């Protein structure tokens, strides 16, 4: 804090405030010199609070968007969806009786240009009542009846601009989808119910129901999802009325097997993803706050060091240790408030900025809003962090002796603070950790994060102790520079602990992000596994399987074709307990949330291994049996002999669990959670799914040729090129990584600030050393060399730890949370190590440079 004060102050009040108010008064007087010395403190708290407030506000804006736009996102007050079949007349009548109904169908299909180029499209076919809520925007704008009208033998559609770009077409161009001719009449700018269906692999094509039927793709068992959305009568319809209507419809059609959503849970999957994403960001935000906490601790220590004389003076004038603590604690909390305010403002503004800058490209309904509870929580985090990291050094201030005034600085004693302060620190840290865990989406992950953070703290403390011990025990070198560097590392009051902690935390996070990032990229964007298929073929009709097999074998004789029957089915009961009444573990919950692909077969599927029970014999004809993936079975709490009821094609089928399998999902082959004995579905109308794998990996040219030939010969079969699908997922992953990188960036800025602050804290000592050594004949170059060596040694030791800790954290995240294989990336690790050394040396020397510039005489006079 600058101590120059330019003008006399006004007269204070004539009365003396009592107790805690007196501490506050003294604290305020102490801050008159300005906040200059607290830049790092304030910036650390501001960045940490901004990260937390920003993440929370963004999440709240998304939740708000989801809630407010529920019926628009859903496309109605309630939606009933069926897969592979349309609603029966009776079902339609039941629904239509409740309000205005709109029918929509979604499916994947291949579109072909006249010259044979193909592109996968996500079709949405709608009826005349669409949309019940919201509006479709097209470019050029046109009413939907005009857009969809059949003209000159072609049905009009609106498509994503991406399709035009991919096929190099303009509006007005014609395509074929199945056996229908399609005219691209407009670009689809927005569709109100875009988010309800999840993320697709291809560009959207919005067409009429008539056009869909004209394609010939609507066949029994085709993978088409039919939505029946209802708008209930009346201006204001309560959620209770919607729920009551759903209950009536379910009671009237108990065997419909439809999936029902109300506007209150328009897109649970999206909500879940938003929550999960928010949690990861929150963890990164908490790391920023944690790193900031180290800055707080350093700043408080440096501040108290500067104020030793004042503290001793207070004591010599009758202030107790508790009073001294109260004065400086009040100061720290006031500074925390000062730092939190810009953090809260920026954090609250973040959703507005994101919506303004990226609203058009983020596939999420952001409704920016100020969420007071979230901001209050972020504020609380900021105050708790400041308290958690300041209590320890403040506790030490309690015991700064007044005799310091007579004897000069006694040096930084490393005593523990009194018991009360240790207990208070533990309580505040526990509160902080408890809050982080309690408020998280997945408490297990949050607890792991808290434990990991604690481990990293302890680890860095040990690294600092080890480095100091090694420096102290190292043989005394003859080179003055090296000797000075080693002495600086281990002398009492050395910067080693604070530099190692500040740099180490930032580095650990950086390594984690880089390794996770690199692994995801490797997984989604680099080479596919050798055995990965080149294509998936969907909707191969039962009647054309033999012709399809022959065609593919003829066109791609060297490739391996794997084809299995494919239905969609939803688990509706386990051992006669309804799915909605089950309490599955987190790893299995997704299986119950929607319909899943199911198959049947005589043989154990490739990539599967039986771990319990027996596979059924060929030509088995007994009660229906099912094979279940092992982890899902564990999550659902079922085993061999238990009964699963699945609704497929509108009827409920109950099968006994005959065996459990492990599945290698990463092979990208055809794998199913549920595989039934063939007698379960034989004769039911369904389609097949197939994969085609080229030995020795992918080959762009022959893939594209086959794609064209297949589209010509089998217009109804949807071909998904695996590389395209992976790229679509990869794009999504890239966006997620961008979000995480943004939050991590804040943490890194905080880490740099903290490191800079930690290095600056040693400035006074540096000036002293430099002046004494210069007096004794040391040149600047020699001093810089010694300091650079010291910083490089610290940077290196910390980098080694950061790489170890960060890689371990990344390995846990990739293998345990993302369930992917982890590959350590040595190149990026080496780069981080190098970067750490460079940053430490540069930041260190920046501070030292001015120390070297001091003329010896004035400093010596004031020593």
């Amino acid at each position, binding site marked *: 804090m600058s101590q120059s004060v330019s003008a006399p*102050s006004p007269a204070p009040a*004539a009365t003396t405030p009592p107790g805690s108010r007196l501490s506050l008064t003294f604290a305020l007087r102490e801050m008159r*010199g300005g906040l200059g010395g607290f830049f790092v403190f304030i910036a650390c708290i501001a960045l940490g609070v901004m990260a937390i407030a920003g993440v929370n506000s963004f999440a709240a804006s998304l939740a708000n968007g989801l809630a407010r736009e529920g019926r628009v996102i859903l496309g109605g007050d309630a939606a009933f969806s069926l897969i592979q079949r349309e609603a029966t007349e009776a079902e339609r009548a039941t629904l239509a009786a409740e309000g205005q109904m709109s029918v929509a169908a979604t499916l994947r299909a291949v579109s072909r240009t006249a010259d044979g180029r193909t592109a996968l499209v996500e079709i949405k076919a709608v009826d005349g009542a669409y949309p019940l809520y919201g509006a479709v925007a097209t470019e050029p704008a046109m009413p939907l009846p005009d857009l969809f009208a059949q003209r000159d033998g072609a049905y009009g559609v609106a498509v994503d601009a991406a399709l035009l770009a991919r096929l190099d077409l303009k509006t007005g161009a014609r395509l074929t989808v199945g056996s229908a001719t399609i005219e691209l009449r407009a670009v689809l700018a927005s569709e109100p119910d875009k988010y309800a269906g999840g993320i697709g692999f291809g560009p959207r094509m919005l067409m009429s129901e008539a056009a869909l039927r004209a394609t010939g793709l609507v066949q029994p068992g085709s993978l088409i999802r039919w939505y029946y959305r209802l708008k209930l009568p009346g201006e204001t319809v309560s959620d209770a009325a919607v729920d009551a209507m759903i209950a009536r419809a379910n009671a009237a059609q108990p065997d419909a097997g439809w999936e029902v959503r109300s506007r209150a849970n328009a897109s649970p999957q999206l909500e879940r993803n938003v929550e999960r994403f928010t949690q990861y960001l929150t963890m990164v935000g908490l790391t920023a706050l944690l790193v900031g906490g180290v800055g707080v601790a350093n700043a408080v220590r440096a501040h108290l060091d500067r104020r030793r004389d004042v503290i001793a003076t207070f004591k*010599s*004038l*009758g202030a107790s240790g508790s*009073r001294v603590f109260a004065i400086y604690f009040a100061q720290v909390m006031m500074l925390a408030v000062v730092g939190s305010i810009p953090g809260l403002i920026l954090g609250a503004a973040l959703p507005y900025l994101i919506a303004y800058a990226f609203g058009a490209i983020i596939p999420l309904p952001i409704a920016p809003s100020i969420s007071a509870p979230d901001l209050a929580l972020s504020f609380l985090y900021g105050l708790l962090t400041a308290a958690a990291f300041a209590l320890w050094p403040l506790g030490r201030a309690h015991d700064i002796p*007044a005799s310091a*005034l*007579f004897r000069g600085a006694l040096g930084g004693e490393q005593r523990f603070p009194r018991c009360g302060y240790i207990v208070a620190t533990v309580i505040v840290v526990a509160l902080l950790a408890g809050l982080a865990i309690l408020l998280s989406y997945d408490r297990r992950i949050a607890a792991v994060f808290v434990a990991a953070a604690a481990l990293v703290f302890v680890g860095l403390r040990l690294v600092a102790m080890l480095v100091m011990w090694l420096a102290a025990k190292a043989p005394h070198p003859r080179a003055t520079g090296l000797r000075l560097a080693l002495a600086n590392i281990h002398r009492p009051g050395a910067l080693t602990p604070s530099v190692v902690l500040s740099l180490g935390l930032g580095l650990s996070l950086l390594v984690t992000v880089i390794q996770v990032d690199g692994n995801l990229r490797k997984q989604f964007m680099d080479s596919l596994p050798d055995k990965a298929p080149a294509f998936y073929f969907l909707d191969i009709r039962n009647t054309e399987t033999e012709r399809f097999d022959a065609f593919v074998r003829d066109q791609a004789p060297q490739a391996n074709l794997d084809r299995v029957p494919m239905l969609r089915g939803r688990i509706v009961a386990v051992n006669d307990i309804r799915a909605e009444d089950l309490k599955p573990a987190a790893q299995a919950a997704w299986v119950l949330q929607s319909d899943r692909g199911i198959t049947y077969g005589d043989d154990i599927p490739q990539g599967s291994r039986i771990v319990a029970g027996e596979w059924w014999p060929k030509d088995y004809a007994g009660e229906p049996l099912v094979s279940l993936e092992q982890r899902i079975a564990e999550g659902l709490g079922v085993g061999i002999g238990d009964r699963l009821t699945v609704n497929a094609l509108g009827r409920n089928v109950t099968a006994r669990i005959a065996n459990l399998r492990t599945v290698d999902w990463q092979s990208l082959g055809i794998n199913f959670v549920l595989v039934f004995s063939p007698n379960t579905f034989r004769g039911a109308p369904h389609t097949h799914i197939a994969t085609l794998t080229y030995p020795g990996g992918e080959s762009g040219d022959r893939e594209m040729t086959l794609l064209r030939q297949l589209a010509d010969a089998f217009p109804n079969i949807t071909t998904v090129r695996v590389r395209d699908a992976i790229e679509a997922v990869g794009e999504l992953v890239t966006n997620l990584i961008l979000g995480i990188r943004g939050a991590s960036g804040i943490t890194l800025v905080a880490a740099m600030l903290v490191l800079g602050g930690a290095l600056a804290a040693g400035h006074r000592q540096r000036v002293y050393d430099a002046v004494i050594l210069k007096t004794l004949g040391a040149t600047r170059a020699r001093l810089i060399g010694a300091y650079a060596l010291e910083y490089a040694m610290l940077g290196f030791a910390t980098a080694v730890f950061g790489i170890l800790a960060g890689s371990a954290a990344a390995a846990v995240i990739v293998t345990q949370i993302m369930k992917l294989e982890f590959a350590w990336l040595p190149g990026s690790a080496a780069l981080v190590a190098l970067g750490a050394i460079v940053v430490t040396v540069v930041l260190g020397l920046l501070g030292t440079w001015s120390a070297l510039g001091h003329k010896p005489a004035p400093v010596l006079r004031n020593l």
Partner: protein
Amino acid sequence: MTNPSGALPAGDAAIALSGLNLSLGRGAARVHILKDVNLEIGRGEAVGLVGPSGSGKSTLLMVMAGLERADTGTVRVAGEDLTRLDEDALARFRGRHIGIVFQSFHLIPTMTALENVAVPLELAGHADAFDRAAKELALVGLGERQHHYPTQLSGGEQQRVALARALAPNPAILIADEPTGNLDEATGRQIVDLMFAGHRERGTTLVLVTHDPALAARCGRTVRLRSGQVEAGAPAAAPAGTARATALA
């Protein structure tokens, strides 16, 4: 001006030290600073502590002010056995009974002259802290500079503020550690005059450490320390009318 809140019990010595030993540092670096010091200072007495550097003068002063604890021996100051008081009780004791003037002034740089003087009064809970502080400042001739910060004051003015601060609670004992050490001769003389005026007018017991023989000579008695011990045969020129003033060593 008569005392005051910090009045001593009648007939008791202001300061009584006996069998005092104190060592500082640890292990091989431990230094035995005060060795079997016995000293009694009467109420209202002015005592100069003199001796070469490192003889233990400042340490002895700190023990008297309750800023340093003796390893052995008894320390009775203003009727209170300081060895029995904990850290906080010692702080409160200082606030009530002891005023300290430092060589380096030790004003709080972020507070005005008035606020600096008011601090001990505020800490002691006086409701009229600022009125009393203003009067004290006027007494040291700084009535017009109350609202100036230490950096806006000269060295002599700063020491006058420090003296006003030390005297503001009307302490029974005023201790000063080389109060003129950082001042030029003329300014130093002003400060000393003010200090002795306070001692005289308020009956405050004055103990000061100095290297200046002239200043030591103004004290009623001089106690000489050498290697942590009170030198035998130190002149005991206690002014008439004060209580016993004996160097017991």
